[in-house]
């Protein structure tokens, strides 16, 4: 397993790009260490702004920089960035349409034993509901790199969530299919569809392989682009397979699964959608893998849900 966290990849890309683009600015809220951006701060001190433990200020200052032509990347734990500065994101970034890239680090439940204060299990719901805000959750280091490079080319707001710890590779060197705002199909199949995002993509991929051994051909989709969601891929899956299971590290309300369900209900209402997500209660303590397993979000849990869905005749 690789030992590079997605957030480290972001730092590496920004480190490199900032050499040639003096407008790239990284901002942290006493979070450079946790964001793996210390090296950036040390290498490009003139392109780094520390705001202290002040997430609201982090976002508004970023918006001010962007309005003057800078390309700010504001990095803070996803929990605080998405909730404490939601108001600043709504007004100063999304509504004012400033080119601010919001890096929600250590997202989902990756803070483990630090508890619910540090989990961001509502960030998709909050960010996606804001007009003009885009939401991305890349699955592994390869996709993260492609995504950040793509985002460097546009001038629109975006929220990007990455986890705290290194994650297993979904893709491999030289084999990273990526088209901006298009979901990546990891495995073709016409029996059932698994749509996952972020760290759970590897579990969905694995579930797809396990199902194949059982003679079930699952279509596995990496929906890193939560908003704008790849509607075409969703509709196609709903039409061509017998049911959809969504898997995400987020509360079950207002997340990626809700958005998939909304599309399917409107366009292919006969296809069933089941949302696998975190419960509407404080999440139990544990390492990500343990917690995923507990809530049936790991590959075995996904396989179980698929078998249940198929048994129910859909």
């Amino acid at each position: 397993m690789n030992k590079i966290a997605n957030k480290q990849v972001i730092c590496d890309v920004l480190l490199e790009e900032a050499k040639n683009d003096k407008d790239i600015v990284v901002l942290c809220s006493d979070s450079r260490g946790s964001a793996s951006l210390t090296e950036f701060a040390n290498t490009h001190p003139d392109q780094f702004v520390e705001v202290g433990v002040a997430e609201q200020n982090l976002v508004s200052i970023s918006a001010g920089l962007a309005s003057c032509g800078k390309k700010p990347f504001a990095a803070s734990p996803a929990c605080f960035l998405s909730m404490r500065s939601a108001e600043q994101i709504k007004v100063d970034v999304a509504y004012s349409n400033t080119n601010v890239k919001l890096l929600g680090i250590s997202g989902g439940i990756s803070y483990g034993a630090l508890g619910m204060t540090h989990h961001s299990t509502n960030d998709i719901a909050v960010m996606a509901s804001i007009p003009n805000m885009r939401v991305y959750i890349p699955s592994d280091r390869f996709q993260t790199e492609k995504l950040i490079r793509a985002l460097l080319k546009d001038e629109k707001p975006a929220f990007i969530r990455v986890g705290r710890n290194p994650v297993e590779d979904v893709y491999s060197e030289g084999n990273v299919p990526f088209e901006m705002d298009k979901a990546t199909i990891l495995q073709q199949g016409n029996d059932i569809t698994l749509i996952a995002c972020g760290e759970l993509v590897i579990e969905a991929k694995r579930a797809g392989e396990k199902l194949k051994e059982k003679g079930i051909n699952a279509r596995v989709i990496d929906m890193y682009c939560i908003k704008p969601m790849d509607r075409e891929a969703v509709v196609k899956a709903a039409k061509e397979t017998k049911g959809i299971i969504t898997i995400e590290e987020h509360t079950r309300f207002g997340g990626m699964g809700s958005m998939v369900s909304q599309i399917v209900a409107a366009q292919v209402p006969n296809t069933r959608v089941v949302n696998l997500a975190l419960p509407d209660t404080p999440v139990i303590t544990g390492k990500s893998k343990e917690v995923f397993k507990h809530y049936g979000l790991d590959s075995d849990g996904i396989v179980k849900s698929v078998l249940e869905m198929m048994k129910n005749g859909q």
Partner: protein
Amino acid sequence: MIDLKIKAYELRKDIVTLIYNAGCGHIGGDLSVIDILVVLYYKHLNCSPETIDHPDRDRFVLSKGHAAEALYCVLADRGFFPKSDLDNYSGFKSKYIGHPNNEVNGIEVNTGSLGHGLSVAVGMAIAGKMDNKDYRVYTVLGDGELDEGSIWEGVMAASHYQLDNLTAIVDRNNLQITGWTKDVMSQDRLEDRWAAFGWYVITIPGNDVDAIDRAIEKAKNIKGKPTVIIANTIKGCGVSFMENQAGWHHRVPNDEEYAKAMEELEAKLEKLRRVS
């Protein structure tokens, strides 16, 4: 050189008329802040309809966004857009809405949610420092707005980064929507608060264009720290029955009140024109 006092009173008439016609607006705060906006836009800001996107232009952020009518009237008069654009102010499909909208020519960022503008201005000032630009950044805050905790995050950062290219002006009219600031949330020793955070503080009579002019000029020469101008203003300034009345925060004048307000403003204008 235009007479700023006369300009401020002419624009008061525009503001009162705009609000009377539209049936909405924050008339009290508009009339308290208008002298500050006039001095900025007719004397100090190097920003005009021609330099609207120029990277070296001075930046202005109306953090107390509810005084949008005052800003729109100033921008229209300065030629950023035709005055007739305001005929549909706050009407169906209008982009001229009750809080500054950056789809309007001359408006940098959207404001209206209190407590954001100062931090946005801090970002603009940091960008200026990074690029070695000479432009200055100005923001106007309400005194009720200072209740917002986020303001003090911005105050801290501006001082930390020694943003001497940033001037904040507090429209200190001692009132907010509910009543006197001292009763809602006291802001006593306001100067000490800003000074303790490392700002250079200037206190002035805030509806006096000469005093505003001098303070803004002075701020340009303060180095190594940001400057705040505490402008002691009168909410509703210029219309006797609106002055110092919390009730006029966003009340709309009826026909009789409108006529009386215009009469008072015209009388004041005549007096000013006679002396000038």
